[in-house]
């Protein structure tokens, strides 16, 4: 059921939302201002692990202005619960305000309200909390140490979860192997760090018994459901609105305790309550990501075929399980995706998430895949090096070429372009590969080329969630499309757009189906009152599933328009084309009726409708993903130049060959890829949340947590191969996250190639390059 005239889909349409964002007319969470608001400032834990002895609020008594203070004792049992229903998973929950024990620096301990944000901060500073320190579990090694008590009472060890995945006969693969290659790889703790911090405003209006919550979130419906369940309120009386959201990257794709607490405080105080997170809070206490350690063992035949893979995956998940993807999300995802784009049928993985006294981790663009691909693709280079093969040739020998392909864990891959992408990148990089080879004789300047080849499972359907027993049971996306009496269109979209350009791309999709201009389509999103229930924007689902839902709903309206047009023109319905604002007889375009006229008839002058036709032009569609999802693929390549005497490295070139199926808007696709790549470059080179031995965070400002800035970054070259998937209505696969998945592996491989050393961890800061190049300076 494709659109008949795909003129908008695939066009480089400039974004409609840009005018608002460029002019200062956009409204973000801090721009939501209500009269009589109380401003919230948190008292947060200053020790990583401690028992709360006393919370002293005496200083507020003579502060000279009204304040309100709430502690864990005041809020009953309100908490965040994010449990996977597996017997292996140990239970944890995080009270919205700590009760008895704090488990990471930055955990909220008390909520202080005042009528001015500066005064709320002043007041919070006068609250003193006395702690009895408890032993800190600060690293994965300490979490493995049975002599250090777990951070939750009653736990048998310091693991949220430890499970296994397997497929095929690994013993046989091991027995047949001519080469056994075992390596350990690590990725540091980092995060998405959107430029806008989080924030929540809540207001309860007794007249309509309505609780309205504004939050800088990617998933308003899930926030609504969690608040309703936790506060025991009817969901019909809660409206959650995500205003303009200043970046998310998965970090805002969680339900946070602050969202529930601010809602509760608004009801409790009877006044609007507002909390705007500051940057320090964001860096220490919102959500971290990655922090993986993988030991892999590959079994390889003497002719360079990968026979099997063994994996041991550990993730430092921090102090709590986060909702809805849980503490098992990252470890499980790493185990699931580790087989990647390669053809082998024996695999065994053990994966675990350790509980430590650090900020909880959760989803960040790529979700475990940047780490998994780092390990997988470093391993491919290390194998190639060990068995004396060219890394691209070794991948080409092992990459999946026939589709559909059922992988070792039983996931079916839809058609992709793995080998073509590798061949394409080899052509594009020919000169760089030659330059790298030539630089091998230089003692001062080395050039290296590294690639990363990967697949990304996107838009997976409900069975994938059921299997994982996560507290998010599905990932469908819904859209409601309504044509107005003047022929303009409103889309109530269950997605939330925070930079992806959905106000444009979704209008393009509907425009093709309805035969109208995308400028006449208004995409409303991020508001539970105007959108059908939906799971929000995450997991690279917006294009394939959101676009698919908009398309399917629009096609239902198109069908009705055609019936109506056929009736009015005395023609056959199947002979009607919708295009250019007209419904016309396909082989005689002069016989037409304006679509806006049809809309007027359908909604107002209903006396003109065919007998039995129900008035109205609206349709809703909920689109679930295919069982195993659809697999986007890409190859990333980095070219680096290293000055051996100083260890200074320059990223000279970064090239992407990607295949996300049907491209809805190349402007947006290229932007998503490039933005993701630069975040991945940050992961590879700069970004690192550092804790000291007492689990005090040392990276608490942008002076310590370093993100890519313009001068360090080259132009990102993007090449496309389009292999539309048969599994989604428009042939689109997900692409929002892919850019961030490959860079750490590609850059590490380039460094390895340049220096002729194995690289086992990120970030590759200047000091790391200095150490890795020591042998070339005769120091090792």
């Amino acid at each position, binding site marked *: 059921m494709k659109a008949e005239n795909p003129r908008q889909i695939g066009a480089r349409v400039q974004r409609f939302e840009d005018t608002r964002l460029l002019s200062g007319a956009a409204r973000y969470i801090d*721009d939501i201002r209500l009269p009589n608001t109380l401003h919230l400032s948190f008292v947060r834990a200053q020790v990583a692990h401690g028992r709360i002895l006393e919370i002293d609020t005496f200083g507020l008594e003579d502060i000279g202005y009204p304040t309100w203070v709430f502690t864990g004792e005041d809020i009953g049992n309100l908490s965040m619960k994010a449990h996977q229903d597996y017997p292996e998973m140990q239970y944890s929950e995080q009270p919205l305000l700590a009760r008895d024990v704090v488990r990471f620096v930055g955990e909220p301990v008390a909520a202080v309200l005042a009528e001015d944000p500066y005064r709320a901060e002043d007041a919070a500073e006068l609250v003193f909390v006395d702690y009895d320190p408890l032993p800190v579990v600060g690293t994965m090694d300490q979490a493995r140490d049975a002599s250090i008590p777990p951070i939750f009472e009653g736990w048998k060890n310091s693991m949220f979860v430890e499970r296994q995945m397997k497929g095929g006969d690994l013993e046989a693969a091991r027995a047949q192997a001519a080469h056994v290659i075992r390596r350990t790889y690590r990725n540091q703790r980092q995060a998405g760090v959107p430029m806008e911090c989080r924030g929540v405003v809540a207001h309860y209006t007794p007249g309509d018994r309505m609780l309205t919550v504004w939050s800088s979130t990617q998933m308003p419906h899930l926030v609504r459901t969690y608040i309703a369940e936790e506060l025991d309120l009817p969901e019909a009386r809660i409206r959650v609105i995500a205003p303009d959201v200043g970046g998310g990257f998965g970090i805002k794709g969680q339900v946070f305790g602050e969202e529930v607490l601010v809602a509760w405080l608004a009801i409790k105080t009877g006044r609007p309550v507002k909390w705007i997170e500051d*940057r320090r809070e964001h860096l220490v206490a919102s959500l971290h990501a990655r922090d993986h350690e993988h030991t892999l063992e590959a079994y390889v035949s003497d002719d360079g075929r990968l026979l099997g893979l063994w994996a041991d995956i550990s993730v430092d998940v921090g102090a709590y399980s986060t909702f809805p993807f849980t503490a098992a999300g990252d470890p499980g995802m790493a185990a699931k995706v580790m087989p990647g784009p390669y053809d082998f049928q024996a695999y065994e993985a053990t994966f675990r998430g350790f509980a430590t006294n650090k900020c909880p981790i959760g989803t960040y663009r790529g979700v475990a895949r940047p780490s998994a691909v780092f390990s997988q693709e470093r391993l491919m280079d290390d194998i190639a090096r060990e068995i004396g093969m060219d890394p691209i040739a070794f991948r080409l020998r092992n990459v999946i070429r026939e589709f559909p392909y059922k992988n070792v864990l039983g996931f079916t891959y839809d058609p992709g372009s793995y080998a073509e992408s590798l061949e394409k990148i080899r052509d594009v990089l020919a000169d760089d590969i030659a330059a790298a080879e030539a630089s091998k004789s230089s003692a001062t300047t080395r050039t290296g080329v590294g690639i990363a080849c990967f697949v990304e499972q996107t838009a997976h359907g409900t069975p994938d969630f059921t299997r994982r027993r996560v507290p998010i049971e599905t990932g469908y996306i819904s859209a409601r499309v309504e044509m107005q009496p003047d022929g303009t269109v409103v889309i109530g979209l269950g997605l939330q757009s925070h930079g992806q350009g959905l106000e444009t791309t979704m209008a393009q999709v509907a425009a093709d189906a309805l035969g109208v201009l995308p400028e006449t389509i208004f995409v409303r999103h991020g508001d539970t009152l105007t959108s059908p229930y939906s799971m929000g924007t995450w997991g690279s689902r917006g294009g394939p599933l959101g676009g698919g839902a908009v398309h399917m709903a629009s096609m239902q309206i198109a069908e009705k328009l055609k019936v109506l047009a056929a009736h009015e023109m005395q023609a056959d319905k199947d002979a009607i084309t919708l295009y250019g604002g007209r419904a016309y007889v396909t082989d005689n375009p002069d016989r037409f009726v304006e679509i806006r006229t049809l809309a007027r008839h359908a909604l107002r002058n209903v006396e003109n409708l065919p007998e039995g036709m129900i008035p109205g032009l609206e349709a809703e569609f909920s689109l679930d993903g295919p069982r195993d999802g659809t697999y986007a693929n890409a190859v990333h390549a980095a070219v680096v130049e290293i000055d051996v005497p100083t260890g200074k490295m320059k990223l000279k070139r970064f090239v992407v060959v990607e295949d996300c199926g049907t491209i809805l808007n190349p402007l947006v696709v290229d932007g998503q890829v490039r933005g993701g790549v630069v975040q991945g470059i940050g992961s590879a080179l700069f970004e690192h949340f550092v804790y000291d031995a007492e689990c005090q965070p040392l990276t608490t400002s942008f002076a310590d947590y370093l993100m890519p800035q*313009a001068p360090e970054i080259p132009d990102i070259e993007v090449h496309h191969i389009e292999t539309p998937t048969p599994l989604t209505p428009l042939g689109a696969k997900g692409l929002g996250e892919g850019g961030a998945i490959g860079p750490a592996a590609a850059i590490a491989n380039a460094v390895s190639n340049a220096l002729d050393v194995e690289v086992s961890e990120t970030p590759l800061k200047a000091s790391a390059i200095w150490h890795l190049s020591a042998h070339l300076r005769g120091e090792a």
Partner: protein
Amino acid sequence: MTMTETTLTVNGQTRTLDVEPRRLLADVIRQEFDIAGVHIGCAHGACGCCTVHIDGTPRLSCLTFAVQCDGRDIKTVESLGGFDATHVLQLAFKSEHGLQCGYCTPGFLMTLVPYVEENVARGTLPSDEDIREAMSGNICRCTGYHGIVAAVRKAIGDQIGGGQ
């Protein structure tokens, strides 16, 4: 709390306010003038989101107290091209996809408008390296800077003629 009488002109609107000395210029512009185009990204002078013009020069409004600006002329992104965002650099940001979530965008625009104007006045199209250096005080987390560099190149190139 002692208040200090401060006269600010923001986008042509002049008001005399009693301001606590510790209030940041960013907060006063946002709250007292009801202007939302000043965004706070870090509040410690590292990201450039809050950049405004003070007497024509780009400054960080999160590192400036409002009382320091008594008598000064302040411009925010709203002053560039109105609600239709018609400034040449705004249009170039749009055509070259120099923004995604838009949060850092006003800061980039306010940093780069004088840079574009200087280069146009000189009639020179700077190198990409130079353009990247000009925005080294601003962090964008969405675009990877690619579209912003292209937008600056286009805005200068189109104005000096024969631009690429």
